[in-house]
């Protein structure tokens, strides 16, 4: 949290409790005089405190001390027996030695089995088939676009497999995750996606979440992972802040190896010239000459990266080079575009200083951490990507508002730019959930249901997947396709949990640190934020 913001909020808390004096108090009171809204906020906070203080106090049930005391008595008695136990003579240690030897033997044997018998490599992501949410789409598990398919093909073709060997399973992404909550096509969005899809990051997420089995439990599935991108001109200081916060809050974390080790060609890597411009040339030579119909030349040793950041080094045969050339002739512009994307990815990867994977944060901690990252560091300031921060805080705020009842949201979302932004920021998750919940209610309680906007695009008794919901809200689909026959259970299973049951905790965070600069709120800004009604909440224009 930035120092200024934290200080401001701390002062306001102390002011409410009457613990503030001197110039700080005078400063706040001056602000209150200027703006009655601020005073109303603080009054409301005082009332809130009073409401809490007025709650009745409950006594402990009698069994609490009874059970505890009986435990205590038992332990006293057992201790007495222990103390009275006669000391035995010299011990025969042989059984213990034998047991220890057996354990060692068993361990070594198991180790040998694991090392020599079991396959040495494993797919980078181990939960490919474990889709619990909608498939495809924004954060989908399978390739959905032509570009994805092209990348898939490149991955299969250049994956280092010998001919005839089955291609390794394509790494999957956990469904339902807002990896790039802001704008997937923006620079930061792509970087976030790169980082999240990095196999090492995925591995950290899954290994520590106990998901290395075929069916990870929902509670342990890091589908609520969030990628934050922070730019700082003082990464070392930033690193200290992050680590201090995580440690102070007992949040387990790992530093992933630096973002994707992208190498575009082997020659360049050997000469240690990690330069994007130079990296273009071998590819341009191949693609340029072949696209212009020149003679087929043996392809130089080359490497590709797939979209998961896996380095794929291969020495193409003449036949493969020929196939590549043919493809280049047919579709040179697309391949160039692909190359550009790879180069951009490399440039992004090079700009990354560090990547952290933190587990089981609460949303509060996430907000605090993101605030921490916006703060001043010793040698400069960090520039946090506000879009990502917004996503977290908006989602949190939205949940607090219990705003799911805003039936007008779906219809407004197509026209209202603010709402469209909310949708892009990830609030659509909840809106979609609400839609589904509303439809479910309507289908089970037809007499009491209200023909609100939520039921209009979705046929009653049918479910809509989350991804379809996103497309609809983005205006990419004119109507929501109905997909599954519905019982309430299947409807709810098709989406993420409703907001009130959304886990308050257990968020997974991928934090990407880049180089760069600043922002800082003031007391007035803090109060203004507080005085505003729930951010961008639409007035529930009832369409009835």
């Amino acid at each position, binding site marked *: *949290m930035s120092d200024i*913001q*934290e*200080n401001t*909020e*701390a*002062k*306001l*808390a*102390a002011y*409410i*409790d009457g*613990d503030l004096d001197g110039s700080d108090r005078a400063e706040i009171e001056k602000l209150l005089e200027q703006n009655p809204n601020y005073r109303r906020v603080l009054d*409301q*906070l005082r*009332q*809130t*405190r009073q*409401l*809490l*203080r*007025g*709650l*009745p*106090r*409950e*006594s*402990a*049930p*009698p*069994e*609490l*001390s009874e059970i*505890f*005391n009986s435990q*205590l*008595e038992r*332990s*006293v008695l057992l201790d007495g027996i222990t103390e009275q136990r006669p000391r035995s003579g010299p011990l025969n240690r042989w059984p213990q030695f034998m047991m220890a030897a057996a354990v060692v033997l068993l361990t070594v044997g198991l180790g040998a089995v694991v090392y020599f018998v079991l396959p040495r490599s494993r797919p980078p992501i181990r939960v490919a088939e474990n889709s619990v949410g909608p498939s495809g789409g924004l954060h989908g598990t399978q390739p959905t676009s032509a570009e994805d398919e092209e990348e898939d093909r490149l991955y299969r073709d250049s994956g280092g497999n010998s001919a005839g060997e089955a291609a390794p399973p394509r790494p999957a992404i956990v469904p339902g995750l807002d990896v790039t909550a802001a704008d997937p096509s923006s620079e930061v969005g792509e970087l976030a996606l790169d980082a999240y899809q990095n196999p090492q990051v995925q591995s950290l997420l899954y290994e520590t979440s106990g998901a290395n089995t075929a069916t990870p439990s929902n*509670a342990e599935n890091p589908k609520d992972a969030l990628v934050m991108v922070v730019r700082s001109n003082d990464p070392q200081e930033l690193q200290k802040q992050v680590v201090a916060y995580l440690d*102070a809050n*007992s949040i387990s974390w790992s530093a992933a190896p630096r973002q994707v080790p992208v190498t575009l060609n082997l020659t360049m890597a050997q000469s240690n010239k990690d330069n994007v411009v130079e990296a273009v040339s071998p590819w341009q030579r191949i693609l340029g000459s072949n696209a212009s119909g020149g003679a087929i030349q043996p392809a130089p040793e080359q490497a590709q990266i797939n979209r998961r950041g896996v380095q794929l080094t291969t020495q193409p045969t003449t036949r493969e080079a020929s196939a590549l050339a043919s493809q280049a002739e047919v579709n040179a512009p697309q391949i160039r575009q692909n190359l550009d994307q790879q180069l951009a990815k490399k440039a992004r990867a090079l700009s990354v200083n560090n990547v952290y994977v933190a587990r089981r944060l*609460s*949303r*509060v*901690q996430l*907000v*605090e951490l993101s605030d921490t990252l916006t703060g001043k560091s010793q040698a400069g300031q960090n520039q946090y990507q506000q879009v990502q921060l917004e996503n977290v805080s908006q989602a*949190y705020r939205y949940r*607090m*508002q*219990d705003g799911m009842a805003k039936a007008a949201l779906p219809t407004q979302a197509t026209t209202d730019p603010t709402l469209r932004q909310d949708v892009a920021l990830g609030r659509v998750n909840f809106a979609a959930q609400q839609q589904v919940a509303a439809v479910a209610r309507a289908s089970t309680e037809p007499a009491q249901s209200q023909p609100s906007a939520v039921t209009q695009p979705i046929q009653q008794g049918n479910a809509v997947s989350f991804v379809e919901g996103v497309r609809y809200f983005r205006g990419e689909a004119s109507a929501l396709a109905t997909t599954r026959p519905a019982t309430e259970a299947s409807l709810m299973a098709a989406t993420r949990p409703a907001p*009130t*049951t959304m*886990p*308050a*905790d*257990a968020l997974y965070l991928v934090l990407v640190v880049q180089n760069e600069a600043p922002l800082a709120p003031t007391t007035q800004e803090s109060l203004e934020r*507080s005085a505003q009604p*729930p951010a961008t909440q639409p007035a529930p224009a009832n369409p009835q």
Partner: protein
Amino acid sequence: MSSLSGTQHDAGLTPNESGRGARPDVALIQRAQRGDRGAYGQIVLLYQDRLYNAMLRLVGDREEARELAQETFTRGLSGIAGFRGDSSPYTWLFRIGVNLAISQLRKVQKQRTFSLDSGGAKGRTGEDQASALLDRMSREQSETPPQRLERRERDQAVLAALGRLDAEYRAVLVMRDIEGFDYQQMADVLGLPLGTLKSRLFRARLALRDELRNYLK
């Protein structure tokens, strides 16, 4: 094992109230550290109501709150050698309890319904019931039935709102506004710098205010 039981009137004492002269809770815990388990039993009696109420407001479920309080006392006993007297015995126990509760809230991500309805009449001793009744009567004496109904509804809403907050927010609100901890005690318990703690408290109150708008002027 009569030494394990304490006197009932001790149970109502808070560290501050018992702070005149030699603090009995500190003396008890020192005796417990020397191996007097009966003294620890009295600590349990002394703090069980307060700790249970705090746990209840944190997790919202009576059975869970009882288990948490029990586990807190058990862990306190097993780690009693680690009590160095830097904080009051209750703060020390509360730290164990609040960490257990937060961990429990993270682990069990179920929807929590906070309720005023007492589930505790069952198995209560006559004395407990009587004191609870007296407590309620003294609170309700000055209220008309409609006022009572209104207050009850409001309390229910406050509890429900509290239940919707994140564990960290709930913890600071319970500690400050229900338990009456001072900032330094809270910072010690939660292991946070003072500024961060106050800032979290401010945000928690904002969050609760947003939940309770209908009940605020």
